[in-house]
């Protein structure tokens, strides 16, 4: 259900998904695949938002609970949850979200900057806000979604 908005040179496709009661979106170019939830193997000494690792066709894929990463209550995953497999630089990671909700086309002019009152966590991830049919969808960047190489407190 592509949402037709104006298309110009800067337009891009975004994939929107729900985490708790909020909606977020990321650039569709980052997404490698979307798959159902499978139980993850917990990693010792991992931050709380790293739920563990799963087997993605032979590769070991870390799963980030996006809710916890964004400071929301932890997801209690069921079979209806989905994992969005994204490519960040040379690594692939899985984002645990509630559901994929939409595919949008938006240009830079549609994206509004987030108000300055937001918390540091929001500032780290939210790159802009996108109003769509009376909903607010936060565009997030994924550069910092995995912990840095040194052990990071959750």
């Amino acid at each position, binding site marked *: 259900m592509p949402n037709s908005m104006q298309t110009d040179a800067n337009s891009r496709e975004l994939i929107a998904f729900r985490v708790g009661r909020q909606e977020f979106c990321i650039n569709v170019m980052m997404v490698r695949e979307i798959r159902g939830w499978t139980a993850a*193997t917990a990693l010792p000494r*991992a931050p709380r938002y790293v739920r563990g*690792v799963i*087997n993605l066709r*032979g590769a*070991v894929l870390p799963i980030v609970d996006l809710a916890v990463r964004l400071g929301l209550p932890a997801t209690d995953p069921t079979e209806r949850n989905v994992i969005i497999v994204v490519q960040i630089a040379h690594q692939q990671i899985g984002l645990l979200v509630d559901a994929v909700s939409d595919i949008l086309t938006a240009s830079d002019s549609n994206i509004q900057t987030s108000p300055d009152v937001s918390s540091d966590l929001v500032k780290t991830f939210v790159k802009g806000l996108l109003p769509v049919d009376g909903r607010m969808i936060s565009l997030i960047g994924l550069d910092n979604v995995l912990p840095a190489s040194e052990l990071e407190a959750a």
Partner: protein
Amino acid sequence: MEDPMAAIRETFFQECEEQLAELEAGLIAMENGTAEVETVNAVFRAVHSMKGGAGIFSLDALVRFAHVFETALDKVRSGDLAATPPVLAVFLRAADVLADLVRAAREGGSVDETRTAALVEEFNHINDAGANAPPVPPAPAAAPPPETTDGLFEDAPQPPVWKIVFTPRPELYAKANETALLLRELSRLGEMRVTLDAAHLPDLNVLDPEGAYLTWHIELVSDCDESAIQHVFEFVEDDCTLEITPPVAPGFAPGTVITGDNGFKFEFFPPAEDEPEAEAAPEARAPDPTTEAPVPAVKEIPVPAAPKSPAVEAMAAKAETAAAVSATIRVDLDRVDRMIDLVGELVINEAMLSQRVMEAGINRASGVAMALEELEHLTREIQDSVMAIRAQPVRSVFQRMPRLVREVAAQTGKQVRLITEGEGTEVDKTVIERIADPLTHMIRNAIDHGLESTEKRLEAGKPAEGTVKLTALHRSGRIVLEVSDDGGGINRARVKQKAIENGLIAPDAQLSEEEIDNLIFLPGFSTAAKVSDISGRGVGMDVVKQSVTALGGRISIASRPGRGSTFTLSLPLTLAVLDGMVISAHGHTLIIPLGAIVETLKPRAQDVFPLDREINVLALRGGYVPMVDVAASLGYCDQFVEPEQSVALLVEGEGGVRAVLLVDAIHGQRQVVIKSLEANYRAVPGIAAATVMGDGRVALILDVDAVVRNARSEAGRVEARADLPALEAN
């Protein structure tokens, strides 16, 4: 798109590596007297091709040196220069320099100019000596040269005549090759005269219709070089006997010169007489009777036309081996690895499918279950075959050792003979790459520390020349490498003394002979009374042991005073799979590398003693070993399990440090495919890698060393209880 020239250059260097190996192998065969007829040619060709390739890439230093080397080899080939031991020693050193030059050209950097210059000087000397030597009398020709050739001898400007003897074997015909086409192709190189030798054609009643009985004698007038002629026969060279005799004198004997409009016709001639001696006298070779010099190349020997002469057969056999060696392809390692990954995936999927089928309650005798069984069988076979692609003979590592031995022998002033066995033993490429360093070190150690000085050897009634033996073999799914020397063996009294001096053991420690021998693997231990620059400063065997342990291997030593020592290295055949013990700790499935496990035991409450608030020790055969709760150590839980309710695994980490790991249960032993955690995540403390189990879930492989180390620093354990995601319900 990458620079195509760079790719060609890379190929050139890869070929150089192979040619260097062939060069060295050939020279060593010549030195040992095991050289075959073809060896000297192979050696010459190796240097020649490197020179040619280097010329294309304007690697002038390499070209210049290869040229000088080639000149000397050519003299050996032609018999002008006898391959005496001193000459071969120069050749071997030249091969080393050539290898350095290739490396310098490949990776940048410089080579020891003085060494190169000194060798060039020696070569000049050798080459001059060869030239000034009194002409070696020619080998007696089988028949006097025909007058006709004689008469034309002075007419230099005429194009030269090649003599080719071509004897197809039945296989040539079986592969639908056509001699007429080959001869027609050959005729394009120049005028030629073809004679059919049908002397071996049997009577009709005994004739095998699919046999091969004919031989062609060809005289070809052409300026072409030998490779052009060989090129014609390129596709049949394994299926025929081919002798190519280089031209002596131009022109044809008067006779029926036959060249048709398309350059091809032939007539029957009576079978040729024995071929005349075909070269100018000073060029003729005479094997040096004082050495076991290789017999000059077959292609230059006047061989009687009889197709089954031993020399020809030798050549044919050689051609067959050459064909066997060249029947390979170069494949990018990434592609192979990708395939190994996919097959690993297939194995897991197959296991999952089996499990699902069983869960579905399908009868074992049903068609589905039987088909599945077949699938499983096939899958294992594919896995084995794919693993075999990465397997390579250890030859590539062994071939580097003779040079090392020469260098170390020269530095220490000892006479050393290296014997290698089992070069064909195959092992995974990654293992090969990583055993080179430990092996190098062990061989250095064997020469520097193991072998006595020449005087001492003679005193002890041993031959002056020490022997170092390097052996590779397969034993129970692992590769075993042995480095043994016939030196003095380990001086146990001194080793113990030294260990006490260095504070490694208590002065009153009671150690078995084996334990004393193993002291040399302790960090900071060096057995040489004086530190030499060869084996280094006590960073010896402990480093070897560490790198071997890192590969999942073990090292041990057996030594007999006065008779020598043997170091035995046992390594897994591949680093892609690992033998592991499947255990569970607080509901988590983990793999413990089997190589680290010494034994499993069930601790009794009366053997457990608290050392402090956190650490318990287990009394084990008179000693105390610290106990590590695996789940707690990884931060899976805060509560320590009661030792007597768990299973204990005695493990040995780096440096022989022992600990007892406590786990909930052992589920058995299996081979697991190692998967990287770093690829998509990062290194996890306490975890070496991951693997995928039969049910498709990821299991973690325990880093035993880290866990053991961690147990020793209490602080490491307290901060370890970082928040964990809730344990998933299985």
